[in-house]
């Protein structure tokens, strides 16, 4: 049942500095595009009472490059990612992932920073960032911290973020190798993923999976095997031991395991 919204408290930030000041002094959950927070509130499953609306912080909506680094502002929407030439050119798998997030309405509102902060293991964008070795830029009044996305999550919906920090940007260095992305969802559009795989066939292969563990994960052992010249059959065997998916309302552990292995094979064949 829906949460009584008027019993909650929200402040609206008009600048990043103001937002950081508020976060230092008060324990508030930031709301960006609201596409996750409001779903949870509409279901009455979200417990925080105090919120900070950061939607108006246009300074977090830029996509730029600094030297060879691609910097995506945290409030960049999926629609903006899809429309960005530079993202299309440098991280096409991120565009592929963005196209498969919800419908157009959600793509217009959902943000990359929000996808990271929400911490869902089924997040569509995060496996891509993981395979691309992206770095999350956190800012507080104390300054900035750069945390590799692959060390960002500590458990189910748990992160290294402090309550006074805000995700302000995502940094991605050039991705060396062929990029590959596949989302296996509950249906053809507007689907929650049952398995997502984002992978890069480069000097050392990178394989990230969503919806198979409490967090998005990199298949490190499988990657190492492939980098060391193992056959795809050997790698498939390793992957099947490396991940331990679970049953939930959307799929089964058995299916996730079986299909993850199949996707690995397909990635390898497609990028040969």
């Amino acid at each position, binding site marked *: 049942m829906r949460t009584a919204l008027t019993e909650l408290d929200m402040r609206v930030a008009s600048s990043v500095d103001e937002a950081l000041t508020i976060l230092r002094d008060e324990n508030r959950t930031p*709301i960006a595009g609201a596409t996750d927070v409001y779903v949870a509130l509409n279901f009455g499953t979200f417990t925080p009472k105090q919120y900070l609306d950061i939607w108006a912080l246009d300074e977090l909506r830029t996509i730029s490059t600094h030297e060879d680094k691609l910097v995506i502002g945290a409030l960049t929407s999926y629609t903006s990612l899809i429309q960005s030439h530079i993202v299309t050119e440098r991280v096409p798998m991120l565009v592929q992932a963005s196209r498969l997030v919800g419908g157009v309405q959600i793509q217009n509102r959902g943000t990359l920073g929000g996808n990271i902060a929400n911490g869902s293991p089924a997040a569509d964008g995060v496996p891509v960032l993981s395979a691309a070795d992206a770095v999350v830029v956190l800012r507080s009044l104390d300054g900035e911290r750069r945390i590799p996305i692959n060390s960002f999550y500590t458990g189910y919906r748990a992160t290294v973020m402090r309550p006074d920090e805000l995700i302000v940007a995502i940094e991605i260095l050039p991705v060396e190798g062929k990029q590959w992305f596949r989302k296996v969802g509950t249906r*053809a559009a507007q689907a929650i993923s049952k398995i997502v795989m984002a992978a890069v066939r480069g000097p050392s292969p990178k394989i990230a999976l969503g919806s198979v563990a409490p967090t998005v994960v990199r298949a490190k052992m499988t990657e190492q095997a492939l980098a060391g010249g193992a056959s795809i059959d050997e790698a498939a065997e390793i992957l099947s031991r490396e991940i331990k998916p679970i049953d939930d309302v959307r799929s089964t552990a058995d299916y996730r395991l079986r299909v993850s292995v199949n996707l690995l094979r397909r990635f390898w064949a497609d990028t040969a």
Partner: protein
Amino acid sequence: MQFNLNGNDVEVQSHPMSRLLDVLREELALTGTKEGCGEGECGACTVLIDGEPVCSCLIPVSQVQGAEVVTIEGLGGNHPLQQLFMNEVGAQCGICTPGMIMAALTLPDDPTLDDVKTALAGNLCRCTGYSAIYRAVLKERAQRHYAPAEDAEGRHGG
């Protein structure tokens, strides 16, 4: 909160966390925007904010401060899409129709069937199987292509 609604400036005294959907329906009495799920899945609550279709059930009203909001009522009653949804029986029970029309507004001219499907993938219809909706939308876009003068009035998004 102040914003522009269907071409008019409005001011509401709502709680900033109130859903835009509820503010539109209850405070501003514009009930053409419907609630089907409260999850951003069905798209029945679709409105345009600054020209982009969004689910108003997932928008805190604080986020439309200073924005332009267009609802189904903002199209008047003679928009070609509205007429064609009627003529092509794109509406059966009608509850998804306003949201469907709002989402279809931003399609480009001469869309392919795949373009239409992608643009409407965020709007669920349980009655039509969507075919009649495609017929309405494709016909409207074809007419629009051949009647550019109409573009001057009553159109949003695009």
